[in-house]
């Protein structure tokens, strides 16, 4: 019997708004513990929530990007449980009237494109952080994160493999970063994932018993955890046993899933509409405003790169992995016109240097305009590609512009035919044996002469011209 995996993912996106979802405290990272605290964040009695409308903007944005229906009449609900990092004893979330529903997103795995349904997206607040201090056997609570806005994106159980799950996560990350609503960083916690997985015989419609896996802190962990869990469930089912519905934690050290101590059991959250927040009406005018102002989606930008600049699909996709990259690339094109050349330079030289230095493109010491200037100098023949690489290294190390470096090092490409002719004649004069062999019919020695001429000019000669002139000079000798 063939089984198929049925996977649904619940992704929490931590939004990069300036202030929290229900109060004016900062969401900035890296503060002292409990620095961004106010009466509401602290759960002080008498405090009241006030909705940050930017959160709704972001929710509408991602809803539109994921082809969802945007709900007009929205409510917030209280979700109750007791835990020290939950100051009010309840989380303000959305229950049966979430802001987005019934959407879908296309996910590419290799050459296959799969459409994954989006069941719902809703707004909610994050909890604080509980840190266990084994030294003093106590728990320390930092409420800076309490009240930071989250969007919970729940997919339909349309994902069929760990690879697909990884691709889905990467697509969601790319999307939220393109929209500018989140850093989408799993390791830092601005993108979190819980996975639901069950198996069923192929062809059967009924769902099997599912388990939920938590504590997945990277794309790789998502895939590995699912791989393990599929195997575990498969072994149970093939052995005639049943899968227990439970919540599991992924243990990254062993690559296995382990049952959580049932501290929650089947928690009754006692959801009810939050009486402190009136219903939120999202009019069509609001949706249209967001639609007009939202950043372009990855697919749109890929299309533009292909249609406007004639790049290949492959190149376009490499450039749009990150919004910062495609923005950088387009800024480079404002200075130089050669899209293909610019693309090569960004994706090989720049990427290579950044990777080596451990930097993001946002922190590149070489600005887009600078790189544009460099590419332009290559394109119009002022310097050779080889020289450009040296210049680039210098640019990367010092932050100086290409023109400054060229002037300082006198590295302009030699394109004066007379100058090149002089050098070539010198090379020929210094290489009697090779000249004789070439004239005797060994055409392959042309490369030797080119190499020697380039060496003599320190690589600064225009290679095309060098080639032409060497041929011409040697031909003259032939005739002689």
């Amino acid at each position, binding site marked *: 019997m063939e089984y198929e995996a049925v996977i649904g993912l619940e992704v929490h996106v931590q939004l990069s708004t300036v202030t929290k979802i229900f109060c004016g405290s900062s969401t900035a990272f890296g503060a002292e513990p409990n620095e961004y605290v106010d*009466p509401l964040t*602290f*759960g*002080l*009695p*008498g*405090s*009241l*929530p*006030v*909705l940050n409308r930017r959160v709704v903007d972001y929710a509408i944005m991602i809803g539109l990007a994921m082809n969802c229906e945007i709900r007009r009449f929205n409510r917030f609900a*209280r979700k*109750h449980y*007791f835990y*020290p990092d939950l*100051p*009010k*004893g*309840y989380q303000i979330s959305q229950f049966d009237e979430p802001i987005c529903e019934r959407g879908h997103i296309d996910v590419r795995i290799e050459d296959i494109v799969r459409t994954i349904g989006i069941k719902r997206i809703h707004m909610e607040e994050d909890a604080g952080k509980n840190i266990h201090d084994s030294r003093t056997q106590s728990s320390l*609570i930092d409420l800076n994160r309490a009240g930071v806005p989250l969007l919970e994106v729940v997919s339909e159980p349309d994902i069929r493999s760990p690879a697909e799950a990884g691709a889905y996560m990467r697509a969601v990350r790319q999307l939220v970063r393109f929209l500018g609503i989140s850093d989408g960083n799993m390791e830092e916690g601005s993108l979190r994932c819980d996975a639901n997985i069950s198996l069923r015989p192929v062809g059967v419609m009924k769902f099997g018993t599912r388990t939920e896996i938590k504590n997945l802190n990277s794309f790789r962990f998502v895939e590995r955890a699912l791989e393990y869990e599929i195997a575990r469930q498969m072994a149970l089912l093939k052995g005639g046993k049943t899968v227990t519905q439970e919540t599991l934690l992924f243990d990254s050290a062993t690559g296995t899933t382990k049952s959580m101590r049932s501290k929650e059991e089947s928690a*009754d959250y*006692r*959801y*009810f509409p939050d*009486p*402190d*927040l*009136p219903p939120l009406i999202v009019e069509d005018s609001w949706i249209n405003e967001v639609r007009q102002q939202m950043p372009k989606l990855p697919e749109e930008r890929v299309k533009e790169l292909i249609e406007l600049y004639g790049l290949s699909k492959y190149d376009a996709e490499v450039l749009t992995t990150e919004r910062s990259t495609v923005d950088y690339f387009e800024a480079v094109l404002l200075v130089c016109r050669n899209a293909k050349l610019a693309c090569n330079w960004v994706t090989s030289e720049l990427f290579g240097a950044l990777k080596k230095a451990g930097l993001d493109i946002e922190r590149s010491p070489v600005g887009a305009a600078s790189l544009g200037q460099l590419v332009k100098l290559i394109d119009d023949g002022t310097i050779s590609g080889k020289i450009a690489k040296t210049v680039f290294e210098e640019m990367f190390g010092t932050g100086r512009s290409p023109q400054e470096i060229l002037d300082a090092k006198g590295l302009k490409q030699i394109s004066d035919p007379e100058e090149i002719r002089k050098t070539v004649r010198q090379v020929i004069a210094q290489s009697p044996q090779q000249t004789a062999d070439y004239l005797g019919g060994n055409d392959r020695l042309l490369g030797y002469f080119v190499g020697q001429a380039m060496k003599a000019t320190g690589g600064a000669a225009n290679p095309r011209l060098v080639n032409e002139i060497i041929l011409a000079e040697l031909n003259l000798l032939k005739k002689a």
Partner: protein
Amino acid sequence: MSLHRLSVTEISAGLAAKKFTSLEVTNDCLNAINAAQDLNAFLTICDDSARKDASAADKLRASGDSRPLLGIPIAIKDVLSTKGIKTTCGSKILSNYIPPYDATVIRKLRDAGTVIVGKTNMDEFAMGSSTENSAFGPVKNPWKKDRVPGGSSGGSAAAVAAPLVPVALGTDTGGSIRQPAAFCNLVGLKPTYGRVSRYGLIAFASSLDQIGTFTRTVRDCAVVAEILSGRDAHDSTSVAQPVPHLVDGLSTSLKGLKLGVPKEYFIGGLSPEVNKAIKASLKQFEALGASIIDVTLPHTEAAVAVYYIIAPAEASSNLARFDGIRYGYRAKDSADLHDLYFKTRSEGFGPEVQRRILIGAYVLSAGYYDAYYLRAQKIRALIANDFRNAFSQCDLIVCPTAPTTAFKLGEKTSDPLAMYLNDVFTIPTSLAGLPAMSLPCGFDKESLPIGLQLIGKAWDEMTLIKAASAYEASTDWHKRLPTE
């Protein structure tokens, strides 16, 4: 001197005429408060800060400031957050809690130059109708000290009735201003829901709680209520309704006014003496030019049940934050986190609060939500609709505030349900979010005060003031003071 016996209006006039200073008035209030400690009306007395505030008010007045509340002493129900001043909600779980911020109404009062003299005793977390649920002992009714002052704002009512201060703030969720006002011969106003900001009001039932006033005259009520009102960005449920200048509503004639009398409110359980006093007041209204018509509020009978589902549900949620982790009482010697929660809340909350939290958690629980909470909210809409229909025929509704006069301390404490029925006439208005006022309309054979309730259309506190002031001007009930 006995400046504490003067009304807000009289004090303001006296200050303007330089007959006395705010410091002198404040000292009289503080002396009276200290002399009346047996009432147990106050939980915190702010001697030093009150005198400082009074002196500051006197300075401002000397420089020409003559605003209506400048230098007027006021008592605050201990459910409102006052920065730097202990705020207990009548509970052990907050017995050491000092808020780091002021409630919006407190900020407004301070900005107006009011002098806060102290925090008053109350039923724990505003849950009760007699102030016998306070963790700090009950409050005595100044009219007869073996009687309750009503609840949950019993301390504020006693403070104004004794009299110790000219005005006090209370809160009303199902009748907690109006019923004590009736028991203590005071004017007690619950504004329209959304009229006064709840920011800083320690929440009991979020969709019902409102802050209001206790005064001895309708004019005083108008002055203070106006200052408290207005949209607040900190409270998403406060509404941007223009605030009327309520003193413009003071009247002597009610010609053209239609008063509705709901037949469902004149039922068994209503004391004959209260009934008689209300009927007499209807005659009085007619003499003032109003016409009386019968109206019906068909879903009245369901109101108490609906309230005791919705209010506890919201309370169970609002009180979840009292867990001993960040502030307030924390039980000692807990074995683990669960034990900490369990002990803290069992030891910190009194029995009525625990009762309501349990009811609330139950009606919100999976499997019961639809049958109880959801259903109660639907019936609530029907109750609100009853009022809308009645108000298509009349301008105000007149009825009793409470079914009886002040009962004896200890009389109803063993029967929670009997206690709940005290609020039978005040609960429906709370569910509908309408403004309502209780004012003095007589005394019973034992010289205990009887209260008359006026209920207005949403946002129509003006008509309440109009009718109440005309009635007050033609009667003497409000002039009487306790002699005990």
